[in-house]
């Protein structure tokens, strides 16, 4: 009667047993990030739909981007694509346990991401100086240096959908890139990233003049510093290859969105001389 005493695997207690494989065959952090990216893609999808809709029904749609704007945007695209490559190399380094090279590749990714943000901010400042503006820039952000006549000023007055779509889309994307760079910094350097971020925030707050569109938005870095400090100080941990891979998913998503923004916003609005 030995069979009567043999228990089925499913009812054995306090013994290691087989567990059901996850539905998507991936660890929960990765599935969670994919779900977040699916929701974020709906946000960008809605913005891109709105942009495309505006673009089609507004006739004529402005085409103010000269060769230097397109060259700048192309360099920005190359920066993001290269950052995706360095992110993949960081994931490889993390998976083989090479922490110094994981940090190096993450730092390279951050450098490319920061270059993208700086080039984009410079382009925004140039366009605003030349007259491309939203009314909220002056009333809320205190932007003062903007041309009142010229091609871009005329576009702002007569076809406000253009600056609304342009600034709306690119601001949302720039915010995501900034959050991504902070995320990379936390994964690569953990609590040692906090003083560096604080220095950048304070430097930005003092160096960006009051008439510039980024004078107040730079304080988003302060919010990022607060969130990063809460995460790093309340839950200190050694980030492993899974964490780097999940961070990589977010970073590649940011690159992916730019693959749609660049042709729709810039290339469809080029000025051919």
């Amino acid at each position: 009667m030995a069979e009567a005493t043999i228990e089925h695997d499913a009812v054995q207690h306090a013994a290691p047993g087989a567990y059901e494989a996850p539905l998507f065959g991936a660890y929960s952090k990765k599935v969670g990030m994919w779900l977040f990216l699916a929701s974020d893609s709906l946000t960008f999808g809605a913005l891109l739909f709105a942009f495309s809709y505006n673009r089609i029904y507004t006739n004529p749609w402005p085409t103010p981007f000269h060769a230097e704007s397109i060259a700048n945007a192309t360099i920005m695209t190359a920066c993001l694509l290269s950052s995706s490559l360095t992110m993949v190399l960081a994931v490889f380094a993390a998976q083989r346990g090479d922490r110094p090279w994981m940090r190096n590749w993450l730092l390279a990714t951050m450098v490319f991401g920061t270059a993208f943000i700086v080039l984009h901010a410079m382009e925004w400042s140039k366009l605003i100086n030349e007259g491309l503006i939203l009314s909220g820039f002056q009333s809320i952000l205190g932007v003062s240096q903007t041309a009142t006549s010229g091609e871009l000023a005329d576009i702002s007055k007569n076809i406000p959908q253009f600056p609304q779509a342009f600034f709306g889309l690119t601001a949302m994307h720039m915010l995501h890139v900034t959050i991504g760079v902070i995320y990379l910094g936390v994964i690569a350097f953990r609590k040692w990233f906090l003083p560096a971020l604080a220095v950048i925030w304070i430097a930005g707050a003092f160096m960006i003049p009051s008439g510039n569109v980024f004078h107040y938005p730079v304080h988003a870095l302060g919010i990022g510093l607060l969130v990063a400090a809460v995460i790093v100080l309340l839950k200190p941990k050694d980030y492993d290859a899974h964490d780097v891979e999940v961070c990589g998913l977010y970073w590649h998503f940011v690159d992916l969105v730019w693959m749609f923004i660049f042709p729709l916003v810039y290339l469809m609005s080029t000025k051919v001389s």
Partner: protein
Amino acid sequence: MHDTATHDTKGQYFWVWAALLVLTAIEVVLGYRQVFSPVRMLEVLLLLSVIKSALIIGYFMHLKFETALMRWLLVLSVVTCFFIMYFFFFPDAERIRHLGVQ
């Protein structure tokens, strides 16, 4: 985590990166030279963007090496979005122009 040793190598990612740069250069040339009419240009640029996205999602985001269920779920969602955009939103935007709404 999937077994990286068996199906992807570093060299593959350099090729994908190079392909993405080449596709970007093609987009810039087509866009700056205004090779096609606006509607055709939009379709071509969207197609190139979808190809670039597929490369990024498949290789950089490793979806090619994930389970079939995850792949199909994401691909079907994206295809549905594009379907709605192309067959409902764009024709509606075109229709508004001819209604005379400014």
